């Protein structure tokens, strides 16, 4: 097994320290940065996402794998910047105003980062203005809205309307997710996609950006 395979495997097992060490080792062995990212970190997270989707592993395992991924990313980030390797896309995410539930939103962030996207996480209780401001400032292609509570779901429509008013609707696509949501609801409020979980969010974002 080469360093990259070992790296992908220890990421799956959530071994943050080992992933950091193996990433550094791969760099020192002269493996190019993009390969370490794609075949090490992203490949590892893809297996994690797949197992999670099939309920073979659960949230704690995903969170541990994410921590491991971050410790590898910390090593790679300065190199990616220096070599001018772009991320495959920029996504602004957050839980809508009035809602403090962030597990689903965090999972979406983990899966998107794990797939190679740059994720700007605005946190919980995010106002419509903050979503749209951040998307404009960062030039994000996607805004991801999360809401667990049925009482906070209506805020999503306000974000969509504000994106229209600021003329970013369309060039920036809006995806939504949350326990009580549906594709019908996304359609009704004018969101571009409904994502039923974090893994699906990656598929939807790639579809909207014409990547698959």
């Amino acid at each position, binding site marked *: 097994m080469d360093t990259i395979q070992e790296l992908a495997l220890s990421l799956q097992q959530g071994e943050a320290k080992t992933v950091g060490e193996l990433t550094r080792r791969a760099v020192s062995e002269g493996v190019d940065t993009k390969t370490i990212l794609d075949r090490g970190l992203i490949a590892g997270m893809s297996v994690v996402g797949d197992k999670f989707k099939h309920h*073979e*592993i*659960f*949230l704690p395992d995903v969170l541990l794998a994410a*921590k491991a991924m971050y410790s590898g990313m910390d090593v790679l980030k300065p190199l990616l910047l220096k070599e001018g390797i772009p991320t495959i896309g920029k996504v602004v995410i957050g839980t809508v105003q009035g809602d403090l539930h962030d597990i689903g939103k965090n999972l979406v962030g983990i899966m998107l980062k794990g797939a190679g996207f740059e994720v700007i996480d605005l946190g919980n*209780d995010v106002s419509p203005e903050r979503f749209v401001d951040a998307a404009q400032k960062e030039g994000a292609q996607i805004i991801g809205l999360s809401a667990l509570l049925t009482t906070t779901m*209506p805020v999503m429509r306000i974000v969509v309307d504000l994106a229209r008013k600021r003329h970013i609707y369309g060039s920036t696509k809006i995806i939504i997710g949350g326990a009580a949501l549906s594709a019908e*609801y996304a359609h009704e409020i004018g969101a571009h996609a409904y994502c039923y979980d974090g893994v699906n969010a990656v598929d939807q974002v790639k579809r909207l950006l014409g990547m698959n």
Partner: protein
Amino acid sequence: MTPFRERLRAPVPIVGDGALGTMLQQRGLKPGECPEKLNLDRLDVVEEVARLYVEAGAEIVETNTFGGTPLKLAQYGLEARTQEINARAVAAVRKAAGEKAYISGSCGPCGRMLEPYGDTPAEVVFEAFCTQIQALAAEGVDLLCIETMTDLSEASLAIQAAKSVAPTLPICATMTFDPTSRGFFTIMGVSVPQAVEGLSKAGADVVGSNCGNGIEAMVRIAEEFMKHARLPLIIQSNAGIPKLVGETATYPEDPEFMAQKSRILADHGVKIIGGCCGTTPAHIAAVRKMVDALPK
């Protein structure tokens, strides 16, 4: 009143109460507001909901303290008022229930994830539950309900906290499961047999499930609990998965439907039958009627 442990041994099921959060929302609790803050500002509303459940025939009424750990209250900057928030909630239920219902101190998740997958050390979570439960016990709850748990470690810490600060209080402990292609699991990956083993080992007196995906899934969860648990069971289902009609959420399962399915729970020997999100005093009244009509 018959001491709660004695009532647990009687053959007739005990009727629990229904939802609190959704009832408070109908009475003006806004999205994103701290439900427990009403214990400080609008105790009349909290008391009103408790009274409605007592009138509907609930024998157990829960306190408005689901998010009453200092860790959870800190999300609203209210951690310094933990004592007061919990104490006033107990007083409100007592005023509504008198000697007609047992007061159950509600303890929900602390809102933080434990190390190593999260950032919060076990001691911090344990301390938070100790603080809340001490306040509930001092004000005289009859039992505790540690509920909507998805992480077995957190549930066990809460039970251990109860054992350490209020060793004589009976403890109901419930977790929330979702159906998957591989059976029922909590989002943290706890199966029903694991929940039974862990909650029992930690020292719960009654184990079971609350919230979830509606009464039909809950009957299947209860059947799985039956296979593994030796302790009495508690089941408090929500009224189905909410659907948005216009901009308001409605729960699809009506009182008659829930009562009819709850009959299966009673036949299985489930000891405490109540409701969770979306259930109302009408749901509890229907369950009461069903229980009263059970063959003696």
